[in-house]
């Protein structure tokens, strides 16, 4: 236990970085994911085609491969961002594909009559999506999107592989010095578990809060 207390500073810094990636990545993934879904269900063929390709691409390439690609390839073409920013952007783009699929399944639960009623009072396609369809779809996918958020929190550890010092990387560094892998990695693991638990519990609270009266 001592090794954790003796090295609390780098470990807490790592945990905070993990939290930061999870928070910004999660919010970003939800925003991008909803936009991708909106494009996916739009009547404009080009938009829905692009959204389809987006989802297929990011679901079928491993996150680690994307991280390596972005971190080492983007500077080659002149796009230089801080390492942490690059990692967050990649995580947003990647997890957004999963959010988009979850939200699309939610849209399928909204009855066609809701969209028809929206159009019948003169709302445009975007208005009916924004005011009627998406609010109901999102309510029905709180749980699956929460699961994507938990996966996102776990996936932040891959950022360690490209040099971001988050919780896993911090634990590894501490272990290199202290050589006490069990304490260090169990400690880090408990950190991830607590984070997943917090997301899972708040998902349940949000789901009950936004439930539609039926």
């Amino acid at each position, binding site marked *: 236990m001592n090794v954790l207390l003796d090295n609390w500073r780098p470990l807490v810094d790592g945990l905070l970085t993990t939290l930061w990636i999870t928070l910004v990545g999660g919010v970003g993934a939800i925003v991008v994911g909803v936009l991708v879904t909106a494009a996916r269900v739009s009547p404009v063929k080009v938009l829905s085609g692009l959204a389809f390709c987006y989802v297929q691409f990011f679901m079928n390439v491993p996150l680690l491969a994307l991280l390596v690609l972005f971190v080492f390839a983007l500077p080659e073409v002149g796009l230089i961002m801080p390492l942490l920013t690059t990692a967050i952007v990649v995580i947003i783009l990647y997890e957004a594909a999963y959010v988009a699929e979850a939200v699309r399944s939610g849209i399928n639960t909204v009855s066609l*009559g809701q969209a028809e*009623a929206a159009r*019948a*009072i003169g709302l445009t396609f975007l208005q009916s999506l924004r005011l009627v369809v998406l609010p109901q779809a999102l309510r029905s996918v709180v749980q699956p999107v929460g699961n994507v958020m938990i996966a996102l929190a776990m996936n932040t550890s891959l950022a360690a592989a490209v040099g971001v010092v988050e919780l896993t990387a911090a634990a590894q560094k501490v272990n290199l010095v202290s050589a006490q892998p069990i304490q260090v990695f169990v400690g880090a693991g408990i950190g991830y578990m607590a984070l997943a638990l917090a997301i899972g519990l708040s998902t349940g609270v949000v789901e009950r809060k936004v439930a*539609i009266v039926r």
Partner: protein
Amino acid sequence: MNRTPPIPDTAGPSPAMVDVRGINKYFGENHVLRDVNLTVAPSEVVVVLGPSGSGKSTLCRCINRLETIQSGEIYIDGQPLPTEGRALARLRSDVGMVFQSFNLFAHRSVIDNVRMGPIKVRKMAKTEATELAESLLDKVGIADKGNQFPGELSGGQQQRAAIARALAMQPKVLLFDEPTSALDPEMVSEVLDVMNSLVADGMTMVVVTHEMGFARHAADSVAFMDEGQIVEMAPPGEFFDSARSDRARAFLSKVLSH
């Protein structure tokens, strides 16, 4: 009126509120509307009757283009129905629609349902839209339900709220697609009462229904549909007492016998 041939292209807009000219509609191979013509004058109430599968609901849904047509023309107050897009949204805002399954927005309170159109489509100020919504909920007899959610209302109350939502757009014409078919029998009359009050107000209405009593007393004319065609169009007295076509007589003998 009985199965008039398609009107030639040279005909211009007419003073009718709804003018359906020779429309054809297919669902795949299925020819569900065959050269249908229908004219509804301002303040006229047309009730569309017919056996299920005759195309009456489809006709109703074509009038505000919830269904597309393959040929023919539809004019609302002299304006041709535009294709999908902003122009169509604008035109739809003038054509109210009441659905069989109510289709109130489940995540919004009743008053939000009613004032959404005025605020988002008509760009009315929120206070003004709220006043309008309150007066309409009062008109349909559910003034006390504004802050409740659709799921907390009975079917009859939901349908009356849906009528208030349609009225909030101050439509030129109201379409009713079997408005009482999903209701328990004891709730049918409260919805019909509201519809009768609209008739008294001079609202232009196209009503697809199985309520023969409403057709007889409230309609200016009855359109009888069968197999995708308007077989007969007549004032209700004439239609119910001495229908001309065999198909209409057969239909009436079935629905009026019990």
